[in-house]
């Protein structure tokens, strides 16, 4: 049991560092076992250090840095154990324009093996989608759905 855990842990830790560096342009993100002696029960700690900055606690990361770090870990898990599908609800809300771009690039790569359903207000994320569903509230206060093409969306921040 713990042989498999150890191998998976190594893969996820490596993926986490890779995605983190792709998102932040450097720095380090580490997964550390709380108790290296006892692989059967050890917990997993996280540390994240954006490039050029001192290592600080996760609590001192900014709103956007936290979201990006969390997505890096999530993508590392998906890369290690490809899940047939993944649903993301506005994980890009706190990201600035440049980081939305990096998120989208990684998403497109992973979408080759995993199916994604992404709820978003960001145009950059919508632009790389294969299909777009528009949800709206009807006059009867019930939700309606419409399949959309990119050209249907108003310009500006989002649909």
């Amino acid at each position: 049991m713990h042989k498999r855990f150890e191998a998976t842990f190594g893969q996820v830790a490596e993926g986490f560092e890779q995605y983190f560096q792709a998102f932040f342009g450097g720095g380090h993100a580490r997964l550390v076992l709380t108790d290296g002696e006892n692989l059967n029960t050890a917990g997993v700690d996280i540390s994240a250090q954006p490039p050029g900055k001192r290592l600080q606690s996760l609590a001192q990361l900014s709103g956007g840095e936290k979201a990006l770090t969390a997505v890096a870990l999530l993508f590392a898990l998906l890369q290690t154990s490809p899940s047939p599908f993944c649903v993301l609800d506005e994980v890009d809300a706190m990201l600035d324009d440049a980081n939305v771009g990096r998120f989208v690039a990684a998403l497109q790569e992973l979408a080759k093996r995993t199916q994604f359903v992404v709820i978003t207000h960001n145009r950059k994320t919508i632009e790389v989608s294969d299909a777009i569903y528009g949800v709206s509230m009807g006059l009867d206060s019930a939700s309606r759905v419409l399949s959309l093409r990119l050209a249907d969306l108003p310009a500006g921040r989002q649909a």
Partner: protein
Amino acid sequence: MYLKRLDVAGFKSFATRTAFEFGQGLTAIVGPNGSGKSNVSDALRWVLGEQSGRLLRARKLEDVIFAGSSKRPPADKAEVTLTLDNSAGWLPLDFSEVAISRRAYRSGESDYLINRKRVRLRDVQDLLMRASAPSGARMGAGQNSYAIIGQGLVETVLNLRPEERRQLVEEAA
């Protein structure tokens, strides 16, 4: 295996029968605030057997049934069916398509169905747990906490306790 189609009727803000067809790549769901986007992700979580009211944003079972509006009466049941493409044989069933359904009635009862046959919740959970890729890797989806990330919850993975994060890695094993 992938999500092929989601049919929603009477679930939260979806008063009438509504269908989403999904392709294998990337599907975006867009729309104004309060239009029902997160309710779609709740429907996916619910049909796969989710029991946590907090994750479903529902305090009691009937909070998922369309509560009515100024122009429509309340629904008497919520029903969601998820059709999964099984041509790659992830799910240990002899069908190229597997439909998982869940219903909830105002009486408090709920039904689970696989390919229109009534089953127990345990059967749905077992089916998803046993799913694995033809290569042998276990499925990370559905029951797995990282397959559906709710609104505002992306940072939760950073705030977990060390032994909870271990579970995430174990699920990926």
